[in-house]
């Protein structure tokens, strides 16, 4: 089990990518995003709120997401919903390809035999 936190060694920018990818399904509020990442990874990545909210605000500051207070469909209350912008969509593509390159590079070092077969 690991937790996403910029202080624990997980690569910087990974969390941003995960958040952007999550928002590809549609607008979501902070809690939903955290829960979604946690559930999708079968609780492997425990969301730390201490990282999630700064990340969300950072993405907003950069113009990759926009936020709006909206009433949740199932609860009769307003939540702050984040929505992916066009700029964010492009950024996700960039980050994804960078991540792929990185993963492949790491894989080649770690499992050279698998490469041969």
């Amino acid at each position, binding site marked *: 089990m690991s937790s996403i936190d910029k202080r624990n060694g997980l690569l910087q920018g990974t969390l941003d990518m995960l958040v952007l990818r999550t928002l590809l399904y549609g607008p979501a509020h902070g809690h939903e995003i955290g829960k979604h990442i946690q559930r999708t990874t079968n609780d492997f990545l425990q969301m730390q*709120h*201490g*990282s999630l*909210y*700064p990340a969300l*605000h*950072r993405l907003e500051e950069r113009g990759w997401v926009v936020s709006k207070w909206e009433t949740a469909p199932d*609860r009769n209350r307003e*939540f*702050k919903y984040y929505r992916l912008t066009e700029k964010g969509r492009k950024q996700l593509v960039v980050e994804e390809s960078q991540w792929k390159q990185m993963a492949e590079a790491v894989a080649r070092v770690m499992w050279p035999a698998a490469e041969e077969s």
Partner: protein
Amino acid sequence: MRWWGFGKRDVDLERELQADLELEEEEQRENGLSPEEAHYAAKRAFGNVPLIREHTRETWGWTRLEQFLRDCRHGLRQLYKSAGFTLTSVLTLAVGLGSASAIFCLMDTLWLHPIHVPHASQLVRVFSTTPQDQEGYFSYFEYQTFMQRMRAFSGLAALGARGSLMPRPDGTSLAMDVNIVSSNFFDVLDVRPQLGRVFTSADAADLRAHPAVVLGYRFWQHEFNGDPSIVGRSIPLRQGKNRIYQVQVLGVLPSSFREIDPNSDRDLWMPAEVWEANTSASELTSHRFRWFHLVGRLAPDATATEANAQAAAVASTLQQADPTYNHNRGARVLSDFTYRMNQAGTTGIVLFAIVAGVVLLSTVNVAHLLLARALTRMPEVTLRLSLGATRAVVACQLLVENLLLGLLGWAAGLGLAAGMIALLPRLLVSEPAMLNSYGSGTTFHLDWRFFFFAGLLALVTMLLLALVPLVQVARSQLIPALQTGQAGRTTAHTSAVRRGALWLQIGISFALLISTGTLVRSFLNTQTRPIGLTRDQVLVAFTQDPDDATRATVLTNLRALPGIRTVAYGIRSPLMPSESGIAVRALLPDHPELREPVSIKFNAISPGFLGVTGTRVLRGRAFTDAEDESGSMTVLISRTMADKYFSGRDPIGQHVRIDSGSARGFLDAVILGITEDAPIDHLGEMPEPFLYVPFHQYATKLSNMGEMTVVLSTVPNAMSMAQSVRQAFIHVNPLLDPMFITSQPELLRYSAGNYQMTAELVTALGVIGLALTVVGLYGFLAFLVTQRRREIGIRMALGGTRQATMLLILSDTTRMAAIGLVVGLALALVAARIEKAALFGVSPLDAFSVAMAFAALVIAMLAAAWLPARRAASVEPMEALRYE
């Protein structure tokens, strides 16, 4: 997002976190937890909410601004906490910046401010020069020659001061100050009128037939109540006894242009053509009359140096063409700026040095206080550094604090300057009280130049203050400071710098105090020393000279007035505010240097004149009624003339030949006596040869100027008699209404004005300087005592008495004072050279002044040392050592 959206965004974040936290709690409850358990589980899941908020805020990218605001708040709190320190620093800065700005305003108004016309930097002044006089006047003929030949000018204009009379309905006349100018004057200077139009060179041909003038703004306001319909109307002017001519008012000048010299004002501006056609034409046609200033505008590609060379060449051709009147006469060109700087002269340099000194002192003192305080705050700084604050953050905070201090000081200084400037007109000695005239009314403005200067000062000060925290943080050493709760030892180096600053300060104060002493004594001397004039009540009335019979009637009427002791008359009386003394050409047949005629200043006087003005006859005898027009001419000569031209011989009974100015040529005159020297134009001038001629002989044998000044010694205050004296003149003939009536004490007061003004100003600065030094010394000693607290504790623990401790601090003060005083004496020697010319009857290093300055400084220093010494003496050994 703007900074004021800051709070809103914070609330938004709070709400977001709250909403998500509640959602988490609800979900936990839905999972079957009890409400209480759900609450805690949610909190656990979220973690440290304030920390989340903190991290999130960091991403907003304005933490720097927020930090700055926090530093400001923190700084203000710190300044508030040590209110005594803050007050002292702010006051010190305010005094420094305020007085410097106020003095700048004074200097700017008097000298620095250019003439208020477009492209004033192109303006130059042209002066006629002789070996004796570097700023002489030109004749109108010379002006015309220069205008034709000078290629370096795009235009050259002439102006000369004259008086004129405007008849009033009651038969009396209003005396006006008039500038007679060449018709191109306003073209050359590019002056635009406030109303109507100004005359130009295009009008020149027409002006004789249709005389026209332009009014000065203040005259227009005073005499015509600012009535715009005056433009186009005609006003009468009186020439001589019977002739009245009309001139048309073309326009009114703006209030910004009153004269080319600051502090002057003219009622009327008249083209030379009009003056020539309606008054004494010879004043413009004769080569003898030199009374014009020349103002030129440089051609675009010319420099003042080129113009100067050209002017010298023109002057030398004039010299060859007319050796009689242009013997030894040259010309020089000065840029208007240079001319104004020359006018400022040593007074200006001294004032500027004082401005710089005061600013430097106050800033150094505040820096000093800051350093002293920095020491006591060292534990706080080091603690913060050791807890992980970066040096940049701490320095930044201290910087903000100091800048706040500087800002407060600057604001207070601006307020102080505004107050001082409001008082400036009182510092300037008002013109002599006069009947029939109003003063020039100098005003001071806070214009952009003032604010620019004040801003510049503030910037320099702030930069100096900003240096302190940088040094402070760079020097802080963690370990020793934390161990002892004291700062690490300041090195010997910084201590020497601080001592040096203090020595300099004590030195400057000492020199300033010495100057204060000598200048005050110098001013007092003008009030008490024998000056060749009486300080008793003498009324002075300047009017036209009527015929003998009328004059006799006037004098009889005046003598009959109650309160009048003696009445006498001459052409002029000493110190009169008109153009400098009148002169006559004279030669001494027996004197090797004076075979050729020279110009000697003179006055024609009635018997008893010298008795009224208070000029003593040293040898021989004064004029009596025996000196009338029948016999041969007689003269009295001044002591300086006797010393200069008759060294070793007795002048009495010798002959002087005086130019009659007519076909009669030079007339022989016998010297009857020698008088003491009396000031001619102003107090403190170098005495020069002077002649007195009996009025009757002058009136009949020399060229008569048609002017008369009646002097009356009065029992009550002279000015209180002015109105009845005026009526006595008018009663005989309204035309004799004096152009002005003033009193000799008033003329003396005005003439001593420069001495008074300098004395007042330097006294104020001496007091300010002393106050600054006391603050500086106090700051330094307070710092020293804090620094040596432990040492003092040990001394006491080892048996040192409180007296011994106090002596320790006082001996330190004494050492410092001794060195400071030596520095001061050195500075005073330099100042003495500059001051010499500005002193009246006192030497610049006057022993009495030095002694007084010394006493004042020692007392002030002891006062400054008293509190820190007391504090040192009250150190409790156990308390001081407990720090170990």
